[in-house]
């Protein structure tokens, strides 16, 4: 009897491993195709399509892309909005979260309601567009890319639910010792909240890095295009990929337009993928905190 059960268990374990392995490959596969495609010789790409084992490798696509001012400009814009945006967003959200989570806040209920409502009901995209472009006149500035995404209710509430788990006594003790609000926040709350601040900060950074919608809506000036928007233009338009190759880049006879698209994609996701192994545990922690209180 015992013998039979463990045989069934072995089958089950084997199934579990196979399932996870297959799903992992399924997740990985498109990236592999992209990366290999970006190194494949253009003529082979056109003749044989994308393969996992190209016969002829080539660096032409990267050579072309790395000479492109458009892409470097996109990088500059994206790095700027990611750094400035994520830091200010984190700062604003942490302060708001602290204030909202604090039991002494006599306006806690109205404040919470004020921040909750936008999650439930919004004016929609048209009034938003009119407010940003007609009232605030933010279109075609870099600030439209930063300001419109500064505060996400969901991430604020991750912070609120974390701050609430910190024992009140800690704060009270500091207060009795004569610490004022700013001191309590900066010297007690911030240091013990590092894991949640890291994960919320990373979520904000990711939002900024991956954004293209605000750019699409409010920016026509190519100098202000973030990376993702440059990439988007190449999805919809092959010519845009050709334009990315500077005339000075005298390479091959056929301009590697397919390769350029892939190389750009790889370069766009690159920094995230490189950071990812280090950051993953924070994301998982942040998500778990979020899951405890939806």
């Amino acid at each position, binding site marked *: *009897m*015992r013998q039979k*059960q463990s045989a*069934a*268990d072995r089958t*089950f374990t084997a199934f*579990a*491993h196979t399932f*996870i392995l297959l*799903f*992992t490959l399924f*997740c990985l596969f*498109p*990236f592999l*195709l*992209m990366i290999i495609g970006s190194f494949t010789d253009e003529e082979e790409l056109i003749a044989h*399509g*994308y393969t996992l084992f190209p016969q002829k490798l080539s660096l032409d696509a990267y050579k072309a892309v790395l000479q492109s001012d458009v892409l470097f400009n996109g990088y500059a814009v994206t790095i700027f909005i990611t750094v400035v945006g994520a830091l200010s967003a984190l700062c604003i*959200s942490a302060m*708001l979260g602290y*204030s*909202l989570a604090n*039991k*002494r*806040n*006599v*306006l806690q209920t109205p404040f919470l309601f*004020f*921040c909750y409502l*936008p999650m*439930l009901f*919004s*004016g*929609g*995209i*048209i*009034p*938003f567009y009119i*407010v940003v472009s007609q009232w*605030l006149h933010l279109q075609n500035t870099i600030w439209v890319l930063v*300001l419109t995404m500064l505060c996400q209710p969901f991430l604020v509430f991750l912070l609120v639910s974390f701050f609430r788990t910190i024992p009140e006594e800690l704060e009270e003790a500091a207060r009795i010792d004569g610490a*004022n*609000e*700013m001191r309590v926040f900066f010297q007690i709350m911030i240091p013990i909240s590092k894991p949640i601040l890291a994960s919320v900060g990373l979520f904000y950074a*990711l939002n900024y890095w991956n954004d293209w*919608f605000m750019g699409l809506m409010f920016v026509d000036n190519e100098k202000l295009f973030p990376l993702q928007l440059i*990439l988007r233009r190449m*999805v919809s338009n092959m010519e845009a990929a050709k334009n990315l190759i500077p005339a000075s880049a005298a390479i091959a006879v056929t301009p590697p337009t*397919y390769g350029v*698209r892939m190389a750009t*994609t790889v370069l766009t996701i690159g920094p*995230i*993928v490189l950071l*990812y*192994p280090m950051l*993953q545990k924070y994301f998982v922690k942040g*998500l*778990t905190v979020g*899951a405890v209180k*939806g």
Partner: protein
Amino acid sequence: MQYQLNASKRSKLKHIVQNPFLYAMAVPGLLFFLVFSYFPIYGIMIAFKDYNFAKGITGSDWVGFKNFDYFFTSDDFWVILRNTLVLNILFILFTTVAAILIALMFNEIRNKYFKRISQSLIFLPYFMSWIVVGMIVQSLFGGEEPMINTWLQYIGLEPVNWMFESKLWPYILTVIRVWQGAGYLSIIFLAAITGISEDLYEAARIDGASKLQIVLRITLPLLVPTIMIMTLLAVGKIFNGDFAMIYAIIGDNSMLYPTTDVIDTFVFRSMRQLHDFGMSSAVGLFQSIMGLIFVITANWVTRRVSKESALF
């Protein structure tokens, strides 16, 4: 201490004056919501107006429900409503099932390295922007010689002109959605599984239960509340939130609108291409109200299931 939650107005004011920083810290965040969330809510009145750029929101002429009439009686209404619902139901159903399977199977894996590496890779697509996903999809299905067709021919099947076959796209989008989102959701389920008491497992093992039995009789039933909550939250958001995905993948390919055009993309297009601000905001308002009804209903149901998990 003089601060009490049910204090009178005067003592509340006193508390605010005496603790200016506690309240000042909330100000930047509150301002953000005021400007970028509440001002647009005020702008909803555009839905009832014949919006004119020169006259502005307040200055434009009222037209009553004309914008709504125009939308509700058009053929587009039923198409985009159906697409929004069908796509979301497909997404929620398949992503949830995949995530449950991943979480359950993952829990069986003991090899640390295999576990760590596969978890990282399963989670990876979630970090990609939809534009990157769109680019990948474009390479697989688009162009003169789609990659998928090369493979189909390789195994002896007929090539398909993907960009014209609108019937196939709900399935393709569902696969993409599972690829992108199942890993993320499975982390939440895994967190819930970790919370299950070890005693239960031990008792089952002593009773001679097989691994499969343990999964089916202990892990899965105890996971049900979390599954319900995540599903209800997703159902609450059924009316909005797919814009980024669908627009990045489908773009302006009108051949695929019959099955892929959803409320979000419809609103965006009527704004950008038709410049019909009145009707687009009417559609947006319809979407917001339906969304609100769904969220409140979902929350009400969630509270029945598990009180702590409800949103409000």
